[in-house]
């Protein structure tokens, strides 16, 4: 973890020189983690989901994108059935084309997590950069950046993502649209979430840049880039970490919403939102599992990240205790 300075009461003189692991297990944050069962469960659920999706190609029982292994005759198998045609066992059932739902969820979750994490990273980079610039330079740069942030924060993120996505789509030539769709999506979701980071970092930077150690660094002849990167940045990362966690949950939900609307990832790379979109067509004919399991995965993912974010906010902010 980044913020040695931001964790309250973590480094006392007695713990100096001990291993990092011992330091972490001794910290207040670790204590508060261990003593809130809901958070421990949320972490466990999140870990299982993330690891399962990360290693989807290894652990998924079938390859849902390999036409050779598709069993059309096994279409619409309910959960926990073994097909009499192919002898395959389907834990969570199959969809209309006979694709194993469990496998599509693992691969789809992978796409969702990749887009969500990349978009959040992009939003952090852009927001932190703009926030540092605005907070450190002040004046005109500050006024312009903060005006943009104000305007953007008064619009819902999903609307901005849709508009950016639409504009970007019309810029890109049709032949590239399929392959560029995921990057356009990351760009759109990232651009809809950066304002929060910019506002927080700008405030923290203004506070930090008036402290003596920054003045000392300036007198020592360090340039603004070096001061920002080595002195100010580490001290503003605490709140950024908290917002990034909550923003990750939002980004995953945003991605699945866009894909559900049919304007997200291309159909060749279905994400959780695409799977839910497909499953919705079978709601009335009684094949509930095609919709239910992807939806459940999405809810578990969003809920556990949200719970972790809430806890993290309280744990690293001593004023809230």
């Amino acid at each position: 973890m980044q913020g040695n300075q931001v964790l309250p009461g973590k480094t006392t003189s007695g713990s100096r020189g001990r291993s990092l692991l011992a330091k972490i297990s001794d910290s207040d944050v670790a204590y508060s983690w261990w003593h809130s069962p809901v958070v421990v469960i949320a972490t466990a659920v999140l870990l299982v989901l993330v690891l399962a999706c990360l290693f989807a190609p290894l652990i998924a029982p079938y390859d849902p994108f390999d036409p050779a292994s598709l069993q059309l005759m096994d279409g619409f198998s309910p959960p926990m059935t073994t097909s009499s045609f192919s002898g395959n066992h389907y834990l969570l059932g199959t969809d209309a084309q006979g694709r194993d739902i469990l496998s599509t969820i693992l691969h789809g979750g992978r796409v969702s997590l990749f887009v969500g994490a990349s978009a959040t990273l992009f939003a952090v980079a852009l927001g932190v950069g703009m926030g540092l610039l605005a907070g450190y330079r002040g004046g005109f740069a500050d006024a312009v950046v903060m005006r943009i942030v104000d305007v953007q924060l008064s619009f819902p993120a999903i609307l901005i993502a849709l508009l950016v996505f639409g504009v970007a789509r019309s810029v890109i030539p049709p032949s590239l649209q399929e392959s560029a769709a995921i990057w356009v999506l990351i760009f759109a979701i990232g651009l809809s979430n950066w304002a929060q980071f910019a506002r927080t970092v700008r405030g923290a930077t203004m506070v930090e840049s008036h402290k003596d150690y920054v003045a000392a660094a300036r007198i020592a002849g360090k340039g603004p880039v070096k001061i920002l990167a080595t002195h100010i940045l580490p001290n503003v990362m605490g709140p950024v970490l908290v917002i990034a966690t909550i923003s990750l949950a939002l980004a995953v939900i945003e991605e699945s919403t866009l894909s559900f609307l049919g304007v997200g990832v291309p159909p060749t790379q279905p994400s959780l939102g695409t799977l839910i979109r497909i499953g919705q067509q079978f709601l009335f004919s009684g094949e509930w599992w095609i919709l239910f399991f992807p939806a459940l995965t999405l809810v578990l993912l969003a809920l556990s990240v949200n719970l972790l974010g809430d806890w993290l906010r309280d744990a690293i902010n001593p004023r809230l205790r």
Partner: protein
Amino acid sequence: MLFFILKRVAQSLIVMIAVALISFIVFRYVGDPVAGMLGQDASIEDSAALRDRLGLNEPVLAQFARFVGNTLHGNFGISYRLQEPVLPLILSRLPATLELAMLSVTIALVGGLVMGILTALRPRSPVSMTIMTLSLIGVSLPTFLIGIGLIQLFAVKLHWLPSFGRGEVVDLGWWTTGLLTSSGLKSLVLPALTLALFQLTLIMRLVRSEMLEVLRQDYIRFARARGLSERTINFRHALKNTLVPVITITGLQLGSIIAFAIITETVFQWPGVGSLFVQAVQFVDVPIMSAYMLFIALVFVVINLIVDALYYLVDPRLHAGSLKNAG
């Protein structure tokens, strides 16, 4: 007062011009508008004539000026996909979205107020605890999943309500309404609930925290010491003072509701402006996209302006501040 309002109006104008500029750039430079209107296999003479007629050979600034002029006259061009003028298209779908949004705001406001007051007055009762836990889960659920869940329960399992469309509508000439037929009303229930739920939890949490804050104040203790009844204290003294922030937040949420209607309209195949926009994004239908962009920006700017002005009228502390600033 006048200074404050003028400053806000100026800010709103800058935002609108920025959005118009983006929308102009998209409209003019994205792809080839001539190809978009004439199709791929138009002759060179035809496209040159159209290029001239549309004024695409003039200087950029003159083009932008005409774009703004056209927009102010309600001329947003012709949809690439539907081959119809954009403004009538949007206007014909506006009633569906507005009826949905209005009903949702009402549900969110009434439900949020009632539940917020309940959870604030009896914070430890089982009902309050259930409501608070449910609201926590509700905030984490994506809107479209709530919609699908409601469809599954009320349309698929119970067969009580229809799951898509507006039902029978009555055409009043300039407005189509689903409020006058029973099938129209039934069709409205599930989309309106879906759209309202998220805002409802927001308003509920706001009312609750404001109410808890007010109940701690000295004048409430004094009212109790005077021997006023609980009912008078809670509703006459406490509730009245929690309403100011609630009204402003609800006003601001109206814009979000129109934006979130995009998702709800897609889930319920509701023939509103939002689903028109989603289809425009899917098919890269630039004229509809840029018109919607301007429309939604206008809605947000106007709502923000009204809420700011209302806030200014309601909260006397702002008067004192602005007098000092204005000299």
